[in-house]
């Protein structure tokens, strides 16, 4: 099931907001579509990112894809275990496979993200 404790982007990333910090990752749908993830490239802690802009790359046995941030802010933490062991993203995209923690520069962008229900509808259409 798609967790309903967070928001989703059209680019198949999720953001779970706690106070003014969002944890960001890719969805199960994205992880399954990519196939086995072999490489995750993430920016350094301290760098700033803008909502819907590219922040990194994820490479699977099939293809290399860009990662787009669902929120704007400053990176406070990144998940090095996902970098060291990229399979974590496949195994647990919503928990251990998280990618970044971002201190939000604004909360307003969250309105541009989808609920779990709306995201499920989107992926059902994309098949």
């Amino acid at each position, binding site marked *: 099931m798609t967790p309903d404790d967070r928001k989703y982007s059209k680019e198949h990333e999720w953001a779970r907001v706690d106070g003014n910090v969002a944890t960001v990752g890719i969805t199960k749908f994205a992880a399954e579509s990519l*196939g086995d993830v072999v490489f995750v490239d993430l920016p350094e802690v301290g760098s700033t990112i803008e909502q819907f802009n590219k922040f990194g790359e994820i490479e699977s046995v*099939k293809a290399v894809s860009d990662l787009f941030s669902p929120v704007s802010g400053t990176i406070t933490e990144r998940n090095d275990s996902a970098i060291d062991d990229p399979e974590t993203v496949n195994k647990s995209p919503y928990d251990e496979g998280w990618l970044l923690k971002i201190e939000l520069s604004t909360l307003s962008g969250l309105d541009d993200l989808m609920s779990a229900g709306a995201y499920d509808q989107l992926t059902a259409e994309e098949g």
Partner: protein
Amino acid sequence: MSSVDRRLLMDRSVAGRRAVTVPEPDVPLTPLPDASLLRDDLQLPEVTEGEVVRYFSLLSQLNFSIDTQYYPLGSCTMKYNPKLNDEMASLPGFSEIHPLQRDHTVQGALQILHELQDMLGEITGLPSVSVDPLAGAQGEFAGLLIARAFHEDRDEGEQRNVALIPDSAHGTNPASAAMAGLEVVTVPSDEHGNVSVEDLRNLADKRTAVFMLTIPNTVGLFEPNILEITKIIHDAGGLVYADGANLNALLGLAKLGYLGFDIAHSNLHKTFSTPHGGGGPGSGPVLVTDELAKYLPTPVVGEVDGKFSLVSPERTVGRLNGFQGSFGIVVRAYTYIRLMGLEGIKAIARNAIINANYIQSQLKDDFDVAYDRYCMHETVMSARRQKANGVSALDVAKRLIDYGIHPPTMYFPLIVPEALMIEPTETESKETLDAFIAVMKTIAAEAQESPELLHSAPHHAANTRLDEATAARKPILRGSDEAAD
């Protein structure tokens, strides 16, 4: 293999050693115009001739090649390359000429280029040919520039800026289209592995510049609706491009021009038996209808009264590389076509098709078949079933190495999960195919009984499971110096 000396040539260097003694010059010495252009800080390996020979012989033994083992790499047509090809290309009249020599001094070479243009035109039904492009993707790029030039001449250049491309296409197709300044719109496949004709009909309109289609398509299937497909695009005012990656399956059986294609490229290094897979260079001639001939890349070889010369088509899209394409490869492809003859050319496609269908029929109980129907020259199977037991297509492919077989193409086309794309080619005997089938059945059983064995494969290769992603992203290019940093 563990006792093998794996040091790079650079690391074998000992100051003062040399392989050859350069003879005294037998022509007058001329000072360099600018001696400061010479560098003296280059680290070159200092080794004896024997060390050089041993080093490269070792590398060749570590290598996997079509001359040593079976190589069913889908979409790559790794057929056996007759040695006569190399013999002909080595003739001094071909190997010791320079591309800037004047035409009258290289008539034989120009004749080969001209005759190959004609032969490729005859084989594909697209009579106007430039062998200039250096690889398949460059052939695509050239073909798309031709489509754009055609539309520009009809004052539709700005309006027609969309390339329609199936979701099963080679990645080079959308990449080439983007490089040629076109917007890529994806055409879905239907449940049988064909282009969805309904979707194509809805997508084709006055913005359509070109529809790019691989035929047989990338799941190894012939498009049964091809005549309808080319008509839909023509009715919309667009052109139809054939990616010739799979041309091997059509040789002597179907002509692209008759099917309604306007532009195509042919990968000489696949269909016409020239080296590739790390051994290139490639060659990707672009082929067009007579109507589009004036846009071909320059140069093409023309003939007047038995005299051959390099000419530039009237509205050429330009030059794609320094000289006249991969000439040594052209000689090999020419030799191959002459060697096969008309009957031989037909036998290529027939044998390629029957070999692929034989493998598909023998393995369909052990692996899923992506689309259960007769295939052309390759079959796309899937390790879906094995994946349920934690064994991926990658694991199956790596395990094949333990049995002395090159892995098939994996995870392509993208529309097939856990894809294993197997192309036996026509040059393999039934005994080789049977041995491959037996190995695949063994691996399917291993996937059930001992998946761990597959996860850690290959076990017997010179190098075992490599971290390919990190190797590609953080390559160590200079041997031990950099590795030590």
